[in-house]
């Protein structure tokens, strides 16, 4: 459909433009980079790789032709790319997920909190991160998107390109494993104080 414009006024978008409906890479990045950053962290990316992985996600998104409004939301569409990028990174980099996340935990703690709050929040982040480590990437992605990022199962299904039944089953299995792991970790609070570095936040 071509848009009629007033005579003498330059068309903002050429009618033959193939990417007229796509979001620009910069606009997409500005709107969703924090989402992607949180998502890759929750998928278990080590701190030193987060920036690189976020870049890789958006470069891949750009190479795919950018986001086109459709069934998927930008967030879940990016999540699908991020899942692939992080999974590939994990396979090739052979990172040590557990210990490598300490700095990420430090960085993720709110600066505005009191020292006591900070300690509690850091423990919370550590528990969640370690419980997430018990999940495989596919279940972990669904769990994170649903439980932490607030996406609906329908949007997750559209973004990841899987049936909604698959999302439900992955979520169900992930919840079961996560809660079990979290309960186990919560029973050992001392473990986290040992893991958390004593330095400044």
């Amino acid at each position: 459909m071509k848009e009629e414009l007033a005579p003498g006024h330059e068309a903002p978008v050429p009618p033959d433009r193939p990417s007229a409906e796509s979001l620009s890479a910069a606009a997409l990045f500005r709107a969703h980079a924090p989402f992607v950053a949180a998502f890759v962290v929750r998928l278990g990316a080590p701190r030193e790789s987060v920036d690189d992985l976020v870049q890789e996600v958006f470069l891949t998104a750009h190479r795919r032709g950018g986001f086109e409004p459709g069934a998927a939301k930008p967030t879940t569409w990016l999540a699908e790319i991020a899942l692939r990028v992080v999974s590939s990174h994990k396979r090739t980099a052979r990172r040590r997920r557990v210990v490598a996340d300490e700095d990420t935990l430090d960085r993720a703690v709110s600066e505005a909190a009191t020292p006591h709050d900070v300690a509690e929040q850091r423990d919370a982040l550590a528990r969640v991160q370690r419980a997430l480590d018990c999940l495989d990437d596919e279940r972990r992605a669904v769990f994170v998107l649903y439980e932490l990022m607030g996406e609906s199962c329908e949007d997750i299904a559209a973004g990841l390109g899987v049936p909604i039944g698959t999302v439900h089953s992955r979520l169900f299995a992930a919840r079961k494993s996560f809660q079990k792991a979290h309960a186990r970790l919560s029973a050992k609070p001392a473990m986290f104080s040992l893991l958390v570095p004593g330095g400044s936040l």
Partner: protein
Amino acid sequence: MSRDPIRIMDDDRLSAELRADLRACAGPSQDYDVEAGMKRLAAGLAAGAIAGTAAAHAGVTSTVKATGLSLLAKIVGGVAIVGAVGGAIYVGSDAPAPARVAAPSAIEASEVEAVSMRAVASATAAITASAVASASSEAPTSEVASSEASASAAPAHPKSSHAIASASASASASAESSIVKEEIAFMAELRQKAHADPAAAAAMADEGQARFPHGLFWQDREAIAVEALMQRGQRDEARRRAGAFLVRHPESPFAERMRRVTGAGADGAPP
């Protein structure tokens, strides 16, 4: 329509600690440095087109590996990998070179200016990639690159058709990267003008739409034009253009800004 289960953090039947822990981790990152990320992305996109050119021209996989060149080299290396895949698309397809394969997208012009040195450095590094690759002096090739680009790369026995396609892709990508750099510079100037001289910015934004009809910065330019028109009192014109933009792109990240600036409704209709 599916019925989603209640989220753990909202389910008061579950342990308070579990819910509190999840709540502490919920949502987007609060401390991700978007501005720094934008600069890296700008550099990566600007370098990407040229890195793709270098890889295609050399007929080898990407060899710009991040060896001691810190962040910048990582960007170029990462983009070069993608560029190599792009090269594979060029070589392996009979279709005309897709305009979007090597094209960067919109970058905030102020950021473009800030990263111009890095982008140029990246481009320079990428341009030399073919020489580096040919010399094979630093042979280590990314695993990803070698696996993904092997389909197109024919370093030992380049077939003539591949060589022609490669050269064609190289020329196409090179021309495109040149346009990209030109557009990046244009956007940097436009962004400066938007702050200093709204009247001139509106005219320049229109000039940019005509000058780069297939560029990917058009959303940025249109947003600048609308704001500039509002600032110089051409409210009806600004709202008309914002309305047209919002009809086309209701979900654009610029949409909310357009609505706010012009006071348009959610559907782009005037207030």
